[in-house]
């Protein structure tokens, strides 16, 4: 099963929830992989401290023009919807920051003048934290597009395991990429107007991606949770857990530790949440 942990708003505790669920599941003897798909800000490794076993660079194919066959017909430039390729006298210019690596220009070129060369955009890592498998991706600074690297990280998930995917915050194309292939989503939120506003977008995204979603409320006592509860009732979205604010949890996060190692109520609460996540019938379709 692929469980994606996401949040419309950043900083709500998505990594707290995802690292704990993965760690506890592996502790139960379940084959589990924690997948950090928040490739712009990958932080799961700080809490799980995995031993990295494999590290490789990821690259996208980008069009290049080897010397010779271009007849300057302009077909490639006319095709590219992102204006990423420009035909100039004697040469063809590709703008890597605009190119989506779709491969279309190479296909439409009538004289087969273009080929593709790898353009590196990030790093993929695989390892283990005790019994827990670990995967993450890290986008190179300066690269604009996270989605291709996210798709590649997800492709590395071994089949048949329980995968807990830490998604990028928000409701953009990067979050959408992380939701691809998910069996269900947990949306982590907080009881503030911000939390509720961003939860709505995240929920709409889950609906367009046809992924059933449920909600975890973090720092439940720091704010007013009534508007959130009313919204969830009206939308028939299950609220699976409400975790309170605890300075001990905040302190553990500040030290880069899994808080449940020391905070027993959190451990029990996360175990209960894991039970619900693993029990198929509990999460209603949105």
């Amino acid at each position: 099963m692929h469980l994606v942990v996401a949040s419309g708003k950043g900083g709500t505790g998505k990594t707290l929830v995802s690292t704990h669920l993965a760690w506890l599941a592996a502790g139960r003897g379940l084959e589990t992989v924690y997948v950090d798909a928040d490739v712009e800000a990958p932080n799961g490794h700080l809490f799980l401290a995995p031993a990295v076993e494999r590290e490789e660079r990821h690259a996208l194919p980008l069009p290049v023009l080897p010397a010779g066959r271009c007849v300057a017909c302009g077909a490639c430039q006319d095709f590219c919807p992102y204006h990423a390729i420009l035909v100039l006298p004697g040469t063809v210019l590709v703008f890597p920051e605009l190119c989506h690596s779709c491969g279309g220009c190479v296909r439409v070129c009538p004289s087969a003048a273009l080929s593709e060369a790898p353009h590196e955009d990030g790093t993929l890592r695989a390892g283990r934290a005790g019994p827990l498998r670990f995967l993450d991706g890290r986008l190179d600074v300066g690269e604009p597009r996270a989605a291709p690297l996210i798709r590649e990280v997800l492709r590395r998930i071994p089949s048949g395991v329980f995968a807990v995917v830490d998604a990028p915050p928000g409701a953009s194309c990067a979050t959408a990429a992380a939701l691809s292939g998910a069996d269900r989503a947990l949306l982590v939120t907080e009881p503030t107007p911000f939390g509720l506003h961003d939860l709505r977008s995240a929920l709409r995204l889950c609906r367009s991606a046809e992924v059933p979603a449920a909600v975890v409320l973090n720092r439940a006592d720091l704010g007013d949770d009534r508007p959130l509860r009313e919204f969830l009732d009206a939308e028939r979205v299950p609220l699976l857990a409400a975790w309170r604010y605890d300075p001990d949890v905040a302190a553990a996060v500040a030290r880069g530790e899994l808080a449940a190692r020391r905070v027993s109520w959190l451990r029990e609460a996360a175990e209960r949440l894991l039970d619900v996540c693993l029990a198929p019938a509990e999460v209603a379709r949105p």
Partner: protein
Amino acid sequence: MKQVVVASGKGGTGKTSLVAAFAELAGRPVVLVDADVDAANLALLLPGEDAPAREFEAGRLARIDAVRCTLCKRCVEACRFDALRLVERRLVLREIACEGCGVCAVVCPEDAVSFEPQRAGEWTVRETRFGPLVHAALTPGAGNSGKLVARLREAARGLAERLAARWLVIDGPPGIGCPVHASVAGADLLVAVTEPTPSALHDLGRLLELAGHFRLPAAVVLNKADLDPAGTELVAAAAAARGAELLGRVPFDPDVPRRLAAGQGLLAVPGVRDAVVACWRAVVRRLDAPGDGAEERQDAIV
């Protein structure tokens, strides 16, 4: 006019409430942009009347003509975005994956593919008590957030010129990807908001690296500074190592979320107010100082 981008590699560090406080301190008229278009929250803090929303169309989506399609699967194999799938003898387009590249139309032997424009979001201008706020809502899952941000900033620059505003303050998105690039390009100062945690420190490093990539001067505001004194020192050291000035340290106050929920800003919280004021003064000192090159940079961009 000076453009200040407030961003944080990691979300949830309090950047939006800081922007709202800066708006109040900057003095009328300030022009504001909420560039966090897929989680736009600044408008929740700044009440006011919105102008009628404008559609933002960008890109296109493929559309398959089921009558013409013979299910040959050439498009499924050619699409690099995994947007086409054959499900139970039907070709299905996953709209949230389609990037509108047009490759499927090139390979289709039956001419079964057409395109429709994608509604990527909508945007508007709100009249707040500090000045106009340009904000938007991205269609969930839509790409083109960078283009939408560029559109908002263009509108904001026009407003700032018309109003002769001294300050344009941008609430930037989290992360380091395209919407962040679109938010910081050509700005005068990046204010990175962070907290004393390993995650925030890690993300701060990447954000400051991005600022370096764009040759953008950067400064740091350390929020919730008293939560972890050791972590605070690490953040200060990381900022110094990248040549980013530490503008100030804002203490943690559990009352802040409640105040925000009640429609009050950071400036209404006594222990927080002074620190936020000091941060804004440091921004002003930095950008108003003659001879820091900000004016030339602005000229170079315009």
